[in-house]
């Protein structure tokens, strides 16, 4: 009896149990309301459990009770830092269902706006990723450039964050006269500014030691986790929906798909930096070849797609964003299912984080680039 008690006392004294750290839902660097339950041995992570759903709004269910045109604004609020890209996915899905031919000019303007949004989203990612690792200044620099994009959006769409740019069948308005010049002005400053961030980070010893070899994800595993977007390309897999299944006018533009070599955080960082430059290159081509003409196709006032189903995917800044629509011939979809890239990419957090330190978990959440509006829907 006494021995047992002594053993128990010894166990409580010397066998340190794992510490459970509840990171979030209110935490500076979980990018919203993500709750990560960490099991720690000292500061080493032994287990990661993501608790999501704090921002669940039931968008997919709401869609079943709304007309096709009314659903579009809900898409702005999925990945709210890339509203324009989300819109593109949905309206193209409905257009596919309706079999509407969108005017050329509208296609080109859609490409320009989506690529601007991709740059804005990547800038926000870079800023927050850097601030998670401790480089505060990069955030402010990124916001300076993002502001320019948001101003362009504001003058065209009227909103900055949840920019509701597209309508089923094209664009609501044509762009304002100075639009082209303003986008060109922005493209002129952008490469220099990207160089500026790279000067701050690319060869910075601390940045390197915080990102190189952290969260290593081999190509095979990335595919098995069904990751998409820069997280997949960082592991060296050349999959980009813009190239694999060209949508909108992307087939007409010439661009590279940057891929990483090792699949660590540093590679994913390089990938996204290169993607920003490629986006700028695409916008330039689209502006050069911007055709004249109408921006809206002939679409009936009441949208009643024929009975059928469709899956449409685009390359959103975070990865493959897909929509699966089932129409029963009425004015409301029978079922709408979203394939959110953030949600699926978030599954890789556990795979990447176990064995690293608490500080790395923060860096890894940053490198996956999640937006909780999209994860929770």
């Amino acid at each position, binding site marked *: 009896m006494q021995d047992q008690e002594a053993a128990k006392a010894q166990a409580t004294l010397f066998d340190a149990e794992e*510490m459970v*750290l*509840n990171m979030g839902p209110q*935490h*500076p*660097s979980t990018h919203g309301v993500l709750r990560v339950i960490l099991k720690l041995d000292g*500061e080493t992570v032994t287990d990661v459990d993501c608790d999501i759903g704090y921002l669940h709004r039931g968008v997919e269910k709401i869609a079943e009770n709304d007309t096709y045109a009314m659903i579009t604004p809900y898409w702005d609020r999925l990945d709210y830092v890339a509203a324009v890209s989300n819109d593109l996915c949905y309206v193209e899905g409905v257009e596919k269902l309706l079999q509407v031919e969108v005017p050329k000019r509208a296609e080109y303007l859609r490409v320009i706006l989506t690529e601007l949004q991709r740059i804005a989203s990547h800038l926000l990612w870079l800023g927050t990723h*850097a*601030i*998670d*690792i*401790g*480089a*505060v*200044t990069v955030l*402010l*620099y990124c916001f*300076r450039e993002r502001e320019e994009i948001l101003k362009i959006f504001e003058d065209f769409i009227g909103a900055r964050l949840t920019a509701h740019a597209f309508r089923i069948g094209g664009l609501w308005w044509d762009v304002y006269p100075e639009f082209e010049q303003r986008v060109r002005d922005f493209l002129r400053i952008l490469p220099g500014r990207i160089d500026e961030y790279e000067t*701050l*980070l690319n*060869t*910075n*010893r*601390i*940045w*390197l*030691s*915080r990102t*190189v*070899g952290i969260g290593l994800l*081999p*190509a*095979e595993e990335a*595919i098995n986790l069904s990751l998409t977007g820069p997280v997949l390309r960082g592991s*060296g*897999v*050349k*999959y*980009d929906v813009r*190239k*694999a299944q060209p949508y909108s006018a992307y087939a007409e533009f010439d661009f590279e*798909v940057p*891929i990483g*070599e*090792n699949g660590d955080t*540093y590679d994913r960082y390089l990938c996204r930096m290169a993607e920003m430059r490629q986006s700028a290159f695409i916008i330039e081509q689209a502006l050069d070849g911007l055709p004249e003409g109408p921006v809206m196709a002939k679409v009936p006032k009441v949208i009643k797609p024929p009975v059928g189903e469709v899956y449409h995917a685009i390359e959103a800044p975070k990865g493959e964003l897909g929509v699966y629509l089932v129409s029963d011939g009425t004015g409301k979809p029978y079922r709408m299912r979203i394939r959110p890239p953030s949600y699926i990419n978030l599954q890789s957090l556990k795979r990447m984080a176990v064995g690293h*330190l*608490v*500080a*790395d978990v*923060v860096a890894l959440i940053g490198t996956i680039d999640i937006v909780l509006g999209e994860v929770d829907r």
Partner: protein
Amino acid sequence: MMEIATTLLAAPKWIIDLVGKDNVFWADYVVVPVIKIVIVLFVVLTVVAYLVYVERKVSAFIQARLGPMRVGPWGLLQPLADGLKLILKEDIVPLKADKAVFLLAPIISVAAALVVLAVVPWGAAWATISSVNIGLLFILAVSSVGVLGLVLAGWSSNSKYSLLGALRSSAQMVSYEVALGLSIIGALMFARTLSMTGIVEAQQADGMWYVLFQPTGFLVYLISALGETNRAPFDLPEAESELVAGYHTEYSGFRWALFMMAEYAAIIITSSVAVTLFLGGWTGLGWLSNLISGWSWTHSIISPENLQVILSIFAFVAKLFAVIYVYMWIRWTWPRYRYDQLMELGWKWMIPAGLANIVLTGIWYVLALPKTSGGLFGLMQNQGGRLVASGWGKIYFIATGFAGTVPIIWGILALINRRSRDFNLHEQRQLQVRLRRERLQKGAEPQPAGD
């Protein structure tokens, strides 16, 4: 005691008149120090408040924005508004916190930081509260008590983030204090005194700032001081993006302000030690005071002696702010180290560098001793009881400092760290990439899908 008594400065005549001839002892040991303490505390606490403002302005300057602009012209009253807000805020003690320790921790922190101000030589002659003959040792000893405040705060908060912050800060401060202690010894060999005023006077006598004799020591000191004061890139104990606020997560209102005060006071102290030890302290504006006191009409306004002291204070403060600016510059440009990397930097880089610097400086010093004392080169002379480097001696020490110590220490560090993960990340990355390519060619890994 005798030593302290002689170095303490006698009270000026008007104070002796005030207290009476019989009470000279009181004037010397109580009245004058109390006046000085009040002035220094008032000035330093104001400066601490304004350092926050300066930090915000500097960060705004670096980040292409304006910083505080709303309260007063250019936001100059911002520290006042901040202080008022913090005093008026609710003082929350968490329910499960160890109350007594929780309340004591910020006091320990701020007291340790402020006590040290007693021996900082703000200027020549009377412009220091107390010139203790072990000044530097006193600073090191008392400022390391400050870490106790952080550890107790983290422990008593009964919060996991605070606990992690406290663990980190105790490990970090212990390791960086060693490096800090080692880095100053090289300069002390030249100064041959621990008294802060004595160190400045030694540099005056040598006619040389010790940063030129001791470039490695200065660098190691600056980096270790960053670690010691929890400044970025070593701000792990309060790493905002990881630990929310680290050890002071649970603090609010004025107790939180005390921690901030301690932090900024610690910056002032480590910077002032850097200025005293390596940058010539309050020297540097002698030419200006000579120029001004050359004009006889100024003598009716201010005596040449007092003018010299006031200008020396200016010189000290200017250097102090230059060092503080460097600290801020570093904070707003660099990312944060990870905990294990921080330890590695401390134990594998800073401490060996500090040790090697001591040995090498010792060798250079012994070689340069006068030939009568057994030196090889005889580049030093005995001047009024202390050894002073001759003209060639100065060139010799600067040359050995930069061209001798720096490359040798770099070689030693490279030898120690050549197997470490972070030593040459670029090469390692290229190696990984090459290995992966080879595996891909062998077919050990699935080929990346093409487009």
